[in-house]
């Protein structure tokens, strides 16, 4: 009969205090490899469209004519495949994840200028 065998852990936790990361106030540190969000250094992009073709979900749209590179944040699965295939290595996986939104988020990058919904960045 082992009853209350949990009590040691319980009291230890009571004394130790919460293990909780008080998230909105304090953030848990991210790691270098943490996959958050794809970003592009648009000035280096050559609009080859390789990322668009390789993207498993079709989140990336590249338009060579308008020199725009855009990504649908609600489609991106952060697989990092685009980054790997990019011949110019101008794509980068950010540590910050895309924050939740009220509607679809499409980040458009035209040459050297970032446009789009600031709130959702």
């Amino acid at each position: 009969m082992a009853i209350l065998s949990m009590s040691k852990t319980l009291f230890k936790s009571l004394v130790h205090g919460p293990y909780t990361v008080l998230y909105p106030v304090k953030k848990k540190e991210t790691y270098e490899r943490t996959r958050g969000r794809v970003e592009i250094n648009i000035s280096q992009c050559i609009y080859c469209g390789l990322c668009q073709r390789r993207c498993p979900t079709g989140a990336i749209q590249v338009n060579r004519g308008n020199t725009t590179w855009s990504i649908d944040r609600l489609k991106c699965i952060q697989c990092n495949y685009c980054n790997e295939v990019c011949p110019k290595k101008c794509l980068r996986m950010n540590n910050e994840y895309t924050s939740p939104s009220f509607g679809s988020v499409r980040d458009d990058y035209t040459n050297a200028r970032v446009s789009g919904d600031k709130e959702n960045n």
Partner: protein
Amino acid sequence: MFTFILRIIGIIILAPLAGGMLTGMDRVITARMQGRQGPPVLQPFYDVLKLLQKEPIEVNLMHRFYVYIALIFVIFTTVIMLTGGDILLAIFALTLGSIFFVLGGYASNSPYSLVGSERELLQMMAYEPMVLLTGIGLYYADNSFFIKDIVSAQAPAILSLPGIFLGLLFILTFKLRKSPFDLSMCHHGHQEIVQGITTEYSGRDLAVIEITHWYETVIALTLVFVFFATKAPVSYVFAVLACLLAYFLEIVIDNGFARVKWQLALDSSWIITGVLGTVNLIILSFFR
């Protein structure tokens, strides 16, 4: 007469506040034991106030009636107990309230509510003998069923009723709906019968159930209280401390056990009642 009415109003208002605060503390301590930060202490009040603001929905017309009437009878019990009334009568009134609550579960005619009701009834069957024996034990000890007489006795009742007190502590786990005996409904809904009787209640009705539970907490702790209180006012301090300690013990038990099945719930409580309660009573009856 006027002061008496004032007192009753005071009880009706203050008892749920105390119960709510206790529940809030319970949630914080539980969270800390689980290594979590936990909600604010006032969280139970937020919950209830939110529920009161929600859109009222129901599954059929008769459904809500039972929880309101249960609340009324639980308040009635609280008033009887805290004004020093007859402890057996209080127990009966409480039972009446609980039965209405159970009927509420049946009235929804929903599968999970029904199973919850059955389990709740089974639990009532499991703990009711001990509650009755507690009243009887107190009568043996102090020759009165009236709480006002019991709390002004020469010696605390615990001295002659240690067995009964332990038995009561055991069934408090049922009363406060704590693990391992939270078969019929528990505060965290991860259970095979969803939320048991409360599954079909929402909004205001759920708030009423929550408030009922606060009153019940006060009632349960009053039962602990009377075991320690004597004529001397200083004993009241000890009695309150004993209540808090008992409540803390329940929290520890809540966090230290897996939920049992009905067989063990019934067996264990009847055996505990049978051993602790009746042996204590038999010994007492010898010395009468």
